């Protein structure tokens, strides 16, 4: 008997050894099934059924009615993402070139707002931007007319940029800090001035960071509902607000909510695959 167990242990193709070799992955597989695959399946199921549980594509068709909101969401999220890249890129570059304590302190200062509650941060912007908020009171004190800032698309974009900027800085910083100083010095040595060092070496080498930063900002920004609710007022609803209404509002309709989520997911995936493709090309197809 012992002999047989030993044989089966030595035999790599035996069922026993197969189980042993895959055992460490089990908890993760269980996690993936319970928390990713099942919910995804449920969304697809709800999106393609009516309240009685019969198959229908009416929900998907109904989701089409919210196309204008969807496009607004994509537009605002795209603007916020571009602004994040423009702000975060030089910032991450400067931090990545600082050595030791200075660099880590600067990075921590960028991350600091993230340690505060998301809602609280957005509330803070409400009180700053309100019609009789901090900025407008200052303007009136100086004798000018107050400016309407709250409940505008600009306020929504500001909220997105402020809340998601750290998610852009971090991946950019990570890829940039991997660019060795010697590579930059090599470029200088070969005749590149500061601008050419950036365009010919730093930029192409940091593109993977740009693409993951874009994903990490664009995806949450396009589906947010709290920022638009608090800073955008009723007139600047985003697709996230519409979905929110289907589950928690008085129009309760989880089937439609699931359908809109599904459509949003497909569109985001399409957007991301385009970003990924351009990256592959600029990297000379190296990442594959």
């Amino acid at each position: 008997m012992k002999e047989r167990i030993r044989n089966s242990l030595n035999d790599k193709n035996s069922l026993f050894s197969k189980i042993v070799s895959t055992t460490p992955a089990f908890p993760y597989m269980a996690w993936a099934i319970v928390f990713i695959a099942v919910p995804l399946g449920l969304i697809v199921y709800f999106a393609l059924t009516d309240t009685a549980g019969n198959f229908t594509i009416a929900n998907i068709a109904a989701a089409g009615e919210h196309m204008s909101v969807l496009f607004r969401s994509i537009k605002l999220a795209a603007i916020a993402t571009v602004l994040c890249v423009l702000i975060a890129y030089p910032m991450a570059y400067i931090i990545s070139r600082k050595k030791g304590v200075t660099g880590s302190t600067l990075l921590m200062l960028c991350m600091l707002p993230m340690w505060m509650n998301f809602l609280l941060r957005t509330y803070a912007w409400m009180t700053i931007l309100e019609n009789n908020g901090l900025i407008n009171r200052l303007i009136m004190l100086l004798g000018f007319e107050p400016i309407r800032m709250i409940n505008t698309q600009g306020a929504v974009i500001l909220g997105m940029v402020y809340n998601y900027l750290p998610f852009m800085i971090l991946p950019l910083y990570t890829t940039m800090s991997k660019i060795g100083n010697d590579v930059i010095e090599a470029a200088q040595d070969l005749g590149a001035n500061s601008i050419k060092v950036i365009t010919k070496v730093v930029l192409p080498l940091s593109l993977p960071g740009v693409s993951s930063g874009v994903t990490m900002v664009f995806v949450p920004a396009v589906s947010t509902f709290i920022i638009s609710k608090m800073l955008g007022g009723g007139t600047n609803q985003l697709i996230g607000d519409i979905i929110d209404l289907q589950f928690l509002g008085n129009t309760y309709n989880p089937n439609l909510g699931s359908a809109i989520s599904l459509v949003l997911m497909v569109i985001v995936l399409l957007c991301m695959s385009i970003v990924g493709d351009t990256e592959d090309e600029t990297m000379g197809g190296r990442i594959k």
Partner: protein
Amino acid sequence: MKENILISLKNVIVEFEDGHRVLKGIDLDIHDEEFVTFLGPSGCGKTTTLRIIGGFAEPTEGDIFFDGVKINGVPPYKRNINTVFQRYALFPHLNVFDNVAFGLNVKKMDKKIIARKVKEMLALVNLSGFENRNINQLSGGQQQRVAIARALINEPKVLLLDEPLGALDLKLRKDMQTELMRIQKSLKITFIYVTHDQEEALTMSDRVVVMRDGQILQIGTPQDIYNEPVNAFVADFIGESNIIDGVMYEDYEVEFAGQAFKCVDKGFALNERVDVVIRPEDIIVGDYETSPISGVVESVVFKGVHYEITVDAHGYKWLIHSTQSQEVGALIGMNVKPSDIHIMKKMEVR
């Protein structure tokens, strides 16, 4: 090597923010078409000196001249100098062709000319046909060649090489040494080479600059440095040496290991304490009864060309290189010719 001076360092001092002096006043003239090597242990300031010439570091004090013109503060991209970096520093996002072409592309040279020059350069470093390879598909030696081609294509007056062969295995290193010497001779440009490998320095250079603690100890041809080291540190760093305490009786006579020896050095004070330096290959093994020094053989190691024999005599471990083996534990005699006894002033204690 030409007579005119191409690069000149005048009392160059580099001090870090914490007050630590990396270079303590370097004076050095480098000739046109010369192969100069900075040799020294790590932390001696050789790489810092190279970085000052390349423009990657600025001297705290002192001046640097290139072809007679002061170039303090001139950024690297405006200097007619190129560098082969320690770990090659190739651009990972570019293939071999684009790496080599980088400098010419920055200068916006005509594409056809670039293509022709890259082809020539790759031929020079024996990498023809590697144009479209990715950098990470190359071996260490091949990456090294790309780095050299990438620097040389800009036709610099000076090529700086910062321990370029450090990451290669022995056989490849030997091949690359020969190849670098060939390239330097055929292109007729100045090479400034940094290494801590004394053998590499002796093999390749026209002149060797031995450095220690931010100072130059000795400048000379490989023969000068090997045969006439200025002090025991240089002697010990350039090849293996026996360094023994001795006393100078008078000119041409020194006492060490309890014996008086004739020597060829003079000009020391009466009874001055000195370092006596003897190369391991200069010790003549003989009969213990007739030789001035005798001792017991402690170990014998076969090294290929010679045996490395350690002998315990008069409180020192003597290192001998001999083509003849000895029995461990045997009593043997040792003698040295007067011309092989090198007398050096005691180094000041730092």
